[in-house]
């Protein structure tokens, strides 16, 4: 069995982490790599504190307790491979995924949601003894506008939130999340909802589809998924930036 001797714990910590970073390379998603390095740096400083609190004969160094960078990198790659199909195929998940998911989200959340809201409204009319057939055309049109309004935003907000969450669970970097949310935003930009108000003589008309953006609403629709993505990336990246250097400096300070 070999024993490790090193010029200083600080140097060993840096060298060990650099070696692990090299070993991990591009074999695991970047967010997984950063998180692993951050947690190991924190663990390293815990081990150093533990060693200091024991007597001088305490034999095992942090690098020996943690394992070699090669072993940890191999474990990380092996665990990553055990993940499902979507976690290992970012192009399918974050490019093809939103292309397919957004129309589904519009149908499910948009139509089902609008139908459910309408049904709830009818039920509340019935509960309060309001005859919906006797409502004025203006009130009916206002209710219709209110029911249709969420259709402009909810499916896209949901899709963006879904891919942000998926990105975090899969340990993907900002590129995947931003790519998915940009596709969602493009859908939102071209998504048009036109509700023609009902008159005494004519029925109302609801038209939904994709078209050249002409209204401010289209840009607001597109801004929602992008804002969700940026907010998510800012939160995650900020946390990672703060934690890794802090953990490394704690690790070296404890040395």
């Amino acid at each position: 069995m070999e024993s490790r001797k090193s010029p200083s714990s600080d140097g060993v910590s840096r060298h060990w982490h650099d070696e692990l970073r090299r070993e991990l390379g591009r074999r695991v998603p970047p967010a997984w790599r950063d998180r692993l390095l951050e947690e190991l740096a924190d663990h390293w400083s815990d081990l150093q504190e533990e060693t200091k609190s024991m007597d001088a004969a305490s034999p095992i160094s942090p690098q020996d307790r943690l394992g070699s960078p090669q072993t940890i990198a191999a474990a990380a790659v092996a665990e990553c491979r055990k993940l499902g199909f979507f976690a290992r195929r970012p192009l399918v998940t974050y490019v093809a995924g939103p292309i397919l998911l957004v129309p589904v989200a519009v149908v499910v959340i948009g139509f089902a949601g609008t139908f459910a809201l309408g049904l709830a409204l009818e039920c509340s009319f019935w509960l309060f003894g309001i005859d919906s057939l006797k409502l004025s055309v203006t009130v009916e049109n206002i209710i219709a506008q209110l029911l249709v309004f969420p259709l402009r935003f909810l499916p896209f907000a949901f899709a963006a939130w879904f891919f942000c969450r998926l990105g975090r669970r899969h340990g993907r970097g900002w590129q995947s999340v931003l790519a998915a949310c940009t596709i969602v935003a493009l859908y939102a930009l071209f998504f048009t909802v036109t509700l023609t108000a009902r008159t005494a003589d004519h029925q109302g008309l609801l038209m939904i589809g994709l078209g050249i953006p002409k209204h401010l609403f289209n840009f607001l629709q597109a801004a929602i998924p992008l804002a969700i993505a940026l907010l998510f990336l800012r939160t995650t990246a900020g946390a990672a930036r703060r934690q890794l250097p802090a953990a490394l400096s704690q690790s070296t300070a404890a040395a």
Partner: protein
Amino acid sequence: MTRRTSNPDFLNGVPELLLLELLARRAMYGYEIVQAIRAATAGRLEFGEGCIYPVLHRLEASGGLASRREECGGRTRIVYRVTATGKKRLEASRASWRQVAAAIEAVLQGGSNGEPQIAVV
């Protein structure tokens, strides 16, 4: 001073059960989990402590664990807890482990033909 290497047995399946079992009792961060494993097994399992993190990350990615950052003594730790999915998986892992242990015990005790498989010297 001996250099520890990861115990292959630890890496080949037991960790998921151990981690889920310990985290089902209370939420913990990595170093705490290692201490809990040592305490629970009286230090009989030897493994590279760093190897628990990839398992934790995979369990989290598959929905068995959830994590959050918590301030502890001026440091921010990533604390893990078991989710409802993780609890279900833990039940399945426990049952599976008991079956395997019972099967191996049966073999060690002589199996169905009653012949001892292990000679006692």
